[in-house]
């Protein structure tokens, strides 16, 4: 994708001479005139943001991390947020009420009770929401996509996001990072969140980070607390570097890997739930 800046001219009227970015996955678009191309799933949208996924188990601080990024970076980057909730639009409302971003730029996607389907098997609803944001607030630099809180195996399809952050927290236990899985092992960034709570839950943060680094073959791990300014700066820098790599075409979206079989608890089910996989 080409670099872009905030002094973009408005998109030319259909049929007027202009050059715009054609997604090479849609090479057939050249066969039609520009007006039709404009209609084609926004392939000629004015800008294509860095689409950044945020995944991780329930309660580890995904929404808070996104609020932090918005608070810290909305002054220098044009941001948008898509939330995925299993049963409510609670996360979207939390972020809107946090006052860190124009509420219009925060939209909720409903996942039909299957949050991993919406970020992995059938990303249609999320892609449409991302494209709408990119169109309505063009040019956006980064669209943050928050997954519904799930288990350790849920990761984003590279068809939906360009890069992804997987979030753990110290309160979930110091041993979680050692358990591995696709998100812990191969997300673009692993965040160990709420490090300020470590003394209260008996977790050795340097050890947890060392375990995570081992599980990730040296991929980046960030020990984060919103009360620790240095860690917040490190997060901001990571986003900036990823955005620069994305714009330069130097970053290729990576797939952390498929889900392992997992268990859906259902108290009405005779076996207490259903084991299934998304192979």
């Amino acid at each position, binding site marked *: 994708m080409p670099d872009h800046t905030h002094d973009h001219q408005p998109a030319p009227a259909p049929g007027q001479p202009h050059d715009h970015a054609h997604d090479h996955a849609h090479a057939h678009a050249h066969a039609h005139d520009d*007006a*039709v191309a404009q*209609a084609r*799933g926004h392939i000629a949208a004015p800008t294509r943001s860095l689409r950044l996924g945020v995944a991780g188990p329930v309660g580890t601080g995904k929404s808070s991390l996104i609020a932090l990024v918005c608070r810290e970076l909305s002054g220098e980057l044009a941001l948008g947020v898509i939330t995925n909730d299993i049963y409510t639009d*609670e996360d979207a409302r939390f972020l809107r009420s946090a006052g860190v971003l124009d509420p219009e730029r925060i939209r909720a996607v409903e996942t*039909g*009770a299957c949050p991993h389907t919406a970020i992995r098997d059938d990303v249609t609803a999320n892609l*449409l929401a991302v494209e709408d944001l990119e169109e309505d607030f063009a040019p956006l630099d980064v669209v943050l996509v928050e997954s519904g809180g799930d288990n350790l195996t849920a990761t984003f399809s590279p068809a939906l996001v360009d890069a992804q952050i997987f979030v753990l927290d110290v309160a979930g236990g110091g041993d979680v990072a050692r358990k591995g899985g696709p998100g812990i092992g191969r997300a673009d960034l692993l965040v160990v969140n709420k490090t300020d709570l470590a003394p209260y839950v008996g977790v050795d943060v340097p050890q947890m980070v060392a375990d995570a680094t081992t599980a990730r073959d040296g991929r980046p791990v960030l020990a984060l607390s919103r009360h620790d300014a240095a860690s917040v700066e490190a997060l901001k820098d990571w986003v900036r570097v990823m955005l620069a790599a994305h714009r330069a075409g130097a970053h290729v979206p990576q797939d952390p890997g498929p889900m392992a079989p997992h268990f859906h608890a259902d108290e009405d089910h005779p076996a207490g739930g259903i084991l299934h996989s998304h192979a």
Partner: protein
Amino acid sequence: MTAVHPPTSVLFALLADARLPTGGHTQSAGLEPALLAGLAVADVPGYIGGRLATVTRTEAAVAVVARHVVLGDPDERVAGLRAVWQAWAARTPAPALRETSQRLGRGYLRLAHRLWGAHPAVVALDAAVVAERTRPSAERPAGPVGRSDRGQPPRPLVLGVVGACVGLDARQVAQLVGYDDVQTIASATLKLAPVDPADATGWVVAAAPTVEAMAARVAHLTDPDDIPASGAPLLEEWAQQHVRRTERLFSA
């Protein structure tokens, strides 16, 4: 790619499969708001029949006529699709139902661009989308403006076009719309109420003759004016209520 194949069962199955990536897993075909409004689980088969007689019959007819026009005179395809689109809008007054149908239509259109993007039927639909988006606002029917008014084609319009791309006949297109609605309701029930999956599948089997009969009644249609206007005000009311809910499993 542009040739119309003989009627195909395999691609019919593909389009009827819930694993088709079009965002269908977010839908309950109105069942969630119906249950929340007091519909008994035992009455779900009746709910299925009610939809097949009303909104689903209209949707099936829209798909049938859309398929017909994109397989007809190349010079009439775009105007024909726009006429079908407007006939759908005239028969779908509830903003919630319109927006849902248009969101699902976008999902199918995204897939159609990737798989059948050079097909003349898809090219004609793209041109119809451009024309609808640039239509002077004075010509547009009065109604809520905003995200529901993006100039996105409704699902049955896109399904008719996709049906033409893969070589479904008119009856198959209507059956597809009917089957998808019934199966969406049955599978959504499993997430909303304690039901044995085999029982829910039995509802689909029991509804099959009704789906066939509904399809047979609309398969011959070729004129947008002949699309039945069989609305269901209670479904519309429930759909409108669901839009404002903050706790729901399904989008609609």
